[in-house]
């Protein structure tokens, strides 16, 4: 067969401009690209349908542009703008003679690829089923009206033309029914990834969603993927934290010192050393134990004093123990041991200086008695309290672990909040019963 062009031209009856027909035989209506007039090409002599003074809108994808989507080359041959009274969107008609038609739907900078279905969806349990995937009802009874039109179409499209529509969604997909008195058609549209549509037709990147913006009915929450991808990272981080905690939280080289303190006597000051911090900064743990304190308390002040610089790092413990009998029987309270932690001691040689003072609790009659020889009250000598200190390098700061865990959990919690905000904004547009938790869970499904 001789090479024949696939594009035919005709003169616009309104402006005389040369207008191309790209899908000859299918196309019925052609909107002149120069003057916007609608031309009827269903019959041999092209007739003018409507004359538009308004020149063609400047389109994101100029008609005649070709682009490859999913391995098929498509040519944009028609464009129309529609509204349902709330929102407005644009639809490009894509054509390839071997693959038929597709719709490229643009709304709020997001692009979807629509395919007309040849099988009617199945209705089951309030949902529509196509190829085993279910779609839940979103918009009930909308009316989509054509507001502007350019290019060619396989039906006689008119400005003002209206169809009844219903939409069903699953994340990333929308199933739409459009019907009038003569025809019923189902279209399945899939939200295109930003790089897909950009590569195909060089359109600007879709905008990022921020709280306050209204997502499309079938737009998948961008946070689902992020929450999912955080799971392995989070798990690794938590394991690493636990490893760090057990490896470096260990205490090493414990040294124990002890001395007695007389209750209600003078404060006892003792110095122990040397205690060496070999490198860097090191946490120290000091365990104070007063195993025999009874009806009293011991104030223990400790200080690590650097031998060279005389810098001092201090901590304080109060060990106490009381017991007795009352109508309920025996009781006891207080703790005979405390664990003190001194964080980040710089490298160096230290003395541990301990000041301890023991006190006995009770009336003077209990604690003192008249000494006839000395002619004065004397404190009954209480048994001395043994103070024992165990110093070790390293410390397990559990609070740090919880803080780290919280920090690790902040991003997914934040994303979860954003996901719920996104889903609320998306579902707020839904017709019918108010969205519930099951809708959010659906929103978590993989596109």
């Amino acid at each position, binding site marked *: 067969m001789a090479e024949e062009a*696939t594009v035919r031209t005709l003169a616009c009856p309104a402006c005389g401009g040369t207008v191309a027909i790209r899908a000859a035989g299918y196309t019925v209506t052609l909107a002149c690209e120069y003057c916007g007039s609608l031309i009827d090409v269903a019959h041999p002599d092209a007739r003018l349908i409507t004359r538009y003074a308004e020149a063609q809108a400047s389109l994101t994808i100029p008609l005649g542009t070709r682009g490859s989507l999913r391995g098929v080359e498509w040519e944009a041959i028609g464009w129309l703008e529609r509204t349902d009274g709330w929102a407005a969107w644009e639809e490009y008609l894509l054509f390839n003679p071997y693959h*038929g038609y597709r719709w490229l739907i643009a709304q709020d900078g997001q692009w979807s690829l629509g395919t007309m279905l040849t099988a*009617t969806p199945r209705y089951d349990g309030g949902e529509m089923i196509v190829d085993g995937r279910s779609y839940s009802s979103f918009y009930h009874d909308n009316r989509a009206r054509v507001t502007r039109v350019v290019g060619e179409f396989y039906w006689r499209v008119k400005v003002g033309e209206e169809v009844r529509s219903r939409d069903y969604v699953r994340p990333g997909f929308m199933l739409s029914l459009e019907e009038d008195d003569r025809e019923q058609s189902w279209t399945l549209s899939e939200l295109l990834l930003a790089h897909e549509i950009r590569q195909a037709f060089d359109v600007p990147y879709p905008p990022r969603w921020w709280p306050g913006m209204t997502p499309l009915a079938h737009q998948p929450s961008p946070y689902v993927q992020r929450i999912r991808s955080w799971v392995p990272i989070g798990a690794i981080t938590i394991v690493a934290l636990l490893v760090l905690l057990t490896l470096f939280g260990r205490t090493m080289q414990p040294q124990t010192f002890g001395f007695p303190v007389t209750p209600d006597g003078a404060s006892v000051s003792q110095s122990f050393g040397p205690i060496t911090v070999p490198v860097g900064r090191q946490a120290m743990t000091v365990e104070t134990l007063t195993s025999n304190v009874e009806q009293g308390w011991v104030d223990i002040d400790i200080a690590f004093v650097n031998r060279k610089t005389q810098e001092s790092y201090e901590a304080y413990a109060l060990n106490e123990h009381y017991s007795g009998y009352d109508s309920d029987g025996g009781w006891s309270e207080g703790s005979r041991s405390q664990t003190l932690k001194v964080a980040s001691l710089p490298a160096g040689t230290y003395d541990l200086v301990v000041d301890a003072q023991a006190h006995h609790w009770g009336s003077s009659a209990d604690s003192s008695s008249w000494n006839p020889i000395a002619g004065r009250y004397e404190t009954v000598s209480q048994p001395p309290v043994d103070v024992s200190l165990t110093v070790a390098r390293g410390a397990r700061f559990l609070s740090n672990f919880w803080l780290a865990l919280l920090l690790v959990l902040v991003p997914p919690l934040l994303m979860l909040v954003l996901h719920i905000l996104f889903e609320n904004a998306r579902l707020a547009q839904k017709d019918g019963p108010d969205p519930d938790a099951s809708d959010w869970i659906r929103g978590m499904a993989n596109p």
Partner: protein
Amino acid sequence: MQTVACPQCGADVLFRSPALPVRVCGYCHALVVRRAQGAQAMGEAAVLPFDISPIQIGTMGHCFGLDFEIIGRVRWSWEDGAWNEWLMLMADGDHAWLGEAMGQFMALREVELKNPMAKVLRRLANGTTVVPGEKATISGHDYVVTDIRTVTCLACEGELPFTAPSGWEALSVDFRNKDGWCASFQKDRREASLYLGHYVTLADLSPRNLRTLPGWTMPAYG
């Protein structure tokens, strides 16, 4: 195969299917009807308008489990558009139709309209209208009415099972189901007929000898 001289212009007219009585003369567009003795001209078919369908007379493929070759076409129009019905000559000598509308293809075979007829079909046969979305049970399967139009024959080419004069008018109602099956009911002033089949893609047909469309890459069908 049988060759007769066109009664109008004298050119050779080739009938490939012994079952098909009508052929459009490739030169003068006369509708040639084959009779027991020779052929008779039945008026003239309009010249087909230019279209860029990927199918052409001579396209071959596989459908309904059989090889086929396209040997004829009727182009129908309705108020707001037009479509092609391609005639497939099946390997077993029978014929079937490949409907091509809005870039979608329907493979259809005529079935006998016999009683008991589906309620919707009975109403249609009696001249009552139906509405899109209405359910119908045809041959034991559930369908939905998707499309109702009054159609007019625009033009035809090749061999045909009936004379298809330009301007021939009929009522056409399309049905679909959830498995991609389809049915088409057509009724003109004289008779009603029913076609059953399913939607196909070009790839499903493993087509050969498709029409080359300059500027477009023909997909490689296996």
